[in-house]
């Protein structure tokens, strides 16, 4: 397998796996049909807008798990504005790259963070600069029958 050591490390020892009870924001992206679903939970301080905690659950391949793990590490302790700068490219670079066929998995990590931030913004009626409505958010209980890639 052409995964980097960092990818394998994050796959084998994923950081921040789990759920946050009463999370400030939750985002789920991807779909089971394509074999990747990522859910990110954020605990955000309403005053400072600092992400105090971040957890994830992922159904997917090694790259999907590793990017989820790395992305949660990268947004933890950051402000919302800083978290918005955590792009799929940044996550990929932090993992020392991904095989070309796996690049699409890293997009999910960025989308999942954005979806969770969107959920937070909706709940608090705030606007986050540069944040758009997530395109493939699956809410709990919904059947995973989305548009095909």
């Amino acid at each position, binding site marked *: *397998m052409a995964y980097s050591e960092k990818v394998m490390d994050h796959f084998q020892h994923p950081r921040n796996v789990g759920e946050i009870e009463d999370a400030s924001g939750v985002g789920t992206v991807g779909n089971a049909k394509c*074999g990747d679903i990522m859910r990110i939970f954020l605990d955000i301080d309403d005053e400072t807008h600092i992400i105090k905690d971040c957890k994830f*659950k992922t*159904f*997917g391949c090694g790259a999907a798990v590793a990017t989820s793990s790395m992305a949660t590490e990268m947004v933890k302790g950051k402000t919302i504005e800083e978290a918005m700068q955590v792009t799929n490219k940044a996550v990929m670079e932090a993992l020392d790259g991904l095989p070309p066929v796996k690049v699409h998995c890293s997009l999910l990590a960025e989308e999942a963070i954005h979806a969770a931030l969107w959920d937070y913004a909706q709940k608090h009626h705030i606007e986050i600069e540069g944040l758009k409505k997530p395109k493939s958010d699956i809410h709990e209980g919904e059947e995973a029958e989305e548009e095909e890639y």
Partner: protein
Amino acid sequence: MGKMIYLDNAATTKTAPEVVQAMMPYFSEYYGNPSSIYDFAGKSKEAITRGREQIAEVLGAKKEEIYFTAGGSESDNWALKAAFEAYKSKGNHIITTKIEHHAILHTCEYLEKERGAKITYLDVDENGIVKLDELEKAITPETILISVMFANNEIGTIQPIKEIGRIAKEHGILFHTDAVQAFCQVPINVDECNIDMLSSSGHKINGPKGIGFLYIRKGVKIRSFVHGGAQERKRRAGTENVPGIVGYGAAAARANASMKERTAKEIQIRDHMIQRIETEIPYVKVNGDRVKRLPNNINVSFQFVEGESLLLMLDNYGICASSGSACTSGSLDPSHVLLAIGLPHEIAHGSLRMTLSEETTMEDVDFVIDRLKEIVEHLRNMSPLYEDFVKKHK
């Protein structure tokens, strides 16, 4: 990492030491070109004749009906393309199935797009078995070839080849079977099954890689696929892969001799694995037929879990297996075979194939199942699908 447990014998097998030993003299001792006339080259010619005889014997064929190729994919390509060329004046219709190997499916797509062939891809039932009434219904006056694999490489299902051969014969249609997984795993007699062409590959039966054969029944008019010299009765040019042929012959003789005993042991281990998985791990589905199944094939889907992750975790313990998930196929779709037997995408993504060898022991597979239980639990604990499922059913 400790000992490796290799459960991917449908992908390839270890070349048996005695096979390697049989091949060795044909690299640097008897390296003569079988087409040359001096006595020294005669050794090479004798060696390929012997290999041909050893293989023909397994199939109940004549040695002149065995044509060596570079492997299973070449044999499949040759059978389909050349049969289509030779018989297109009679008709342009080919019948195959949705669960064939890509060497068949992509060749059919090529013939369809570039050569004006009409292809019927038969559905299979939920166990992966071709429906004979649908096969008969698909036959038209234009049908020139039926190609159905002997046994499936992913789910191990063995097709009713004898009945298919009978139907093909009744209608005067050529019958090709891709027996890459079945050769030396199940008894095959080309006459009893009315097989006109059969593909096989050396490295699936503890033989070397880079060698295969196409059995072509005497009288079938298919032409050369590789043009050049007069090798293989002018049907497949190129200096023969002498060590490969020697190894293939030795492997076939060896695997044929041990077939009964070996497969009985494999069936016992296979059924033990399936039984343990089904009783000890919840939310699993065994894919493929329980009985009409290759002795060494186990294919199971674990709900809420993705196949590549499963393989990577198993690899940590030195366990080699394979999966039909999209991530392992290099596309966004999971295995076409698993979809053809009606699995939803998300279940197909969580499939695991383990294929045994003569060396696999009960201790090996018990270790594998114990690890598998932990791994599936670990992956489910981080799966949002499992979380949703648990919440829904609380």
